[in-house]
């Protein structure tokens, strides 16, 4: 079990834009470096990338949620 942590505080998004599919669905395979979400911080968007490979389990925060630096955003298996 690996967690993807937020590098910065801000607002977390699970999709590239409203109406677009989520970056990852439960069961998707994840390669190291895959984008799993976006963080809006000070009007700038930063990609959150997986640092390990595995299978996507779930997001730990909702789309549009305020998050802190270091907060777990998603869980991977394997």
């Amino acid at each position, binding site marked *: 079990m690996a967690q993807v942590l937020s590098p*910065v*505080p*801000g*607002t977390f998004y699970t999709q590239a834009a409203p109406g677009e599919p989520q970056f990852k669905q439960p069961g998707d395979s994840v390669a190291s470096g895959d984008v799993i979400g976006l963080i809006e*911080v*000070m*009007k*700038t968007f*930063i990609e959150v990338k997986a640092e390990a490979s595995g299978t996507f389990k779930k997001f730990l925060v909702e789309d549009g949620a*305020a998050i802190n*630096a270091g907060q777990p955003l998603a869980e991977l298996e394997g």
Partner: protein
Amino acid sequence: MPIKRMLIANRGEIAVRIIRAAKAMDIHTIQAHSEADVDMLAVRLADEAVCIGPAQAAQSYLNIEAVVAAAKATKADAVHPGYGFMAENADFVRALDAAGITFVGPSADVIDRMGDKVAARLAAKAAGVPVVPGSKGRLDTVEEAVSVAAELGYPVMIKAAAGGGGKGIRIADTEADLRKMAPQAQAEAKASFGDGGLYLERAINSPRHIEVQIMGDGTDAVHYFERECSMQRRRQKVWEEAGASCLDQETRSHLCDTAVALAKAVNYVGAGTLEYLYDRETKEFFFIEMNTRIQVEHPVTEMLTGTDLVQEMIHVAGGGKLRKSQADITRNGHAIEVRLNAEDPMMQFLPSPGKINTLRVPEGDGIRFDHFLYEGYQVPPFYDSLLGKLIVHAENRDAAIALMISALEGLEIGGIKTTKPLHLALAHDASVRADDFHTQWLEPWLAAGNLKPTP
């Protein structure tokens, strides 16, 4: 009616700046804030504060209903919008008008007119303000384009008449270039927009961004001279000066006088800025747009002319006449402002919100720091990264740069990353010191690795 109770519908350093101006005028201040901004300095300084919604700006600082309701609930007779957020939102102004509350700025109609690029360009032309020469309508053939280009003068910019943004723009330096590029541009415009019509505009190579500060009371208008704001990264100004040393006196007078003509033509009320591109080779300047608000970089003009522009705009919004005639407004010395942002310039300007552990502010003659920080303050991640503006004023440009270096060395913002190292490097750079830069200068300078970590 002079303003007695003013709601500040903004945050950060400009909210602090507005409160200071209002207090000097004995106006009761009411600070609007989001749930994330309860601890900000402006809330602490204001006579009272009112929460207007959640952290997300769309639900607070950009929420017309919430701000108007807060103004009514606190019995404000005026609202100051600052810059950004709803400062140029005509619908907001109309909602305040309907509630009988004064907006500190121009009328909704003037905001609409100046916010529309085509209408603003027409108003500028009618007032004698030079605009970038361009084709009058769409061009459908290469021969038409060649004949229009001959009138405009090369280089010309080829755009799709139906397009927007920067897509498919080509620059032709000669007629031969144009004959080669126009058919390509037509084909691309047809493929992208279903319309092969073209539009030509004179291209200005390596332009400088020059802007003129104006102030109007509805009948009269004056200028407060120009600012030089070419130092930009991603179209955001980084370092601003007043005046523009690259202008000669004749060009400066022409630039400022035509700006006043436009302000008078639209019966302008409040502070405004006309932005221009300036071609240093030909000494030509061309209107780009008008901003109908106080600007971030207004302090350099205040230092140059010894005028409190924020107080003056509040005064005219309350129905007052301009307190300084054009003859009373003089320029003295040179002023420079740098923007301290919560960004790491060594890491592609990655935003750096967080807690301010230490704060040391430089003091002395000709040094001013407009900011909203205090030790222990947590800079929230929800808004833009501007922390403050360091402004210096000295007898000439060289002395101002020297003072900027010592002021920057005396400034310490501990706990987060800031753009201070960028400004120190710029202040030491030979091209900056020689006043030899333009709007396309900073990004290649950064890409070339000119900003090095200090040992």
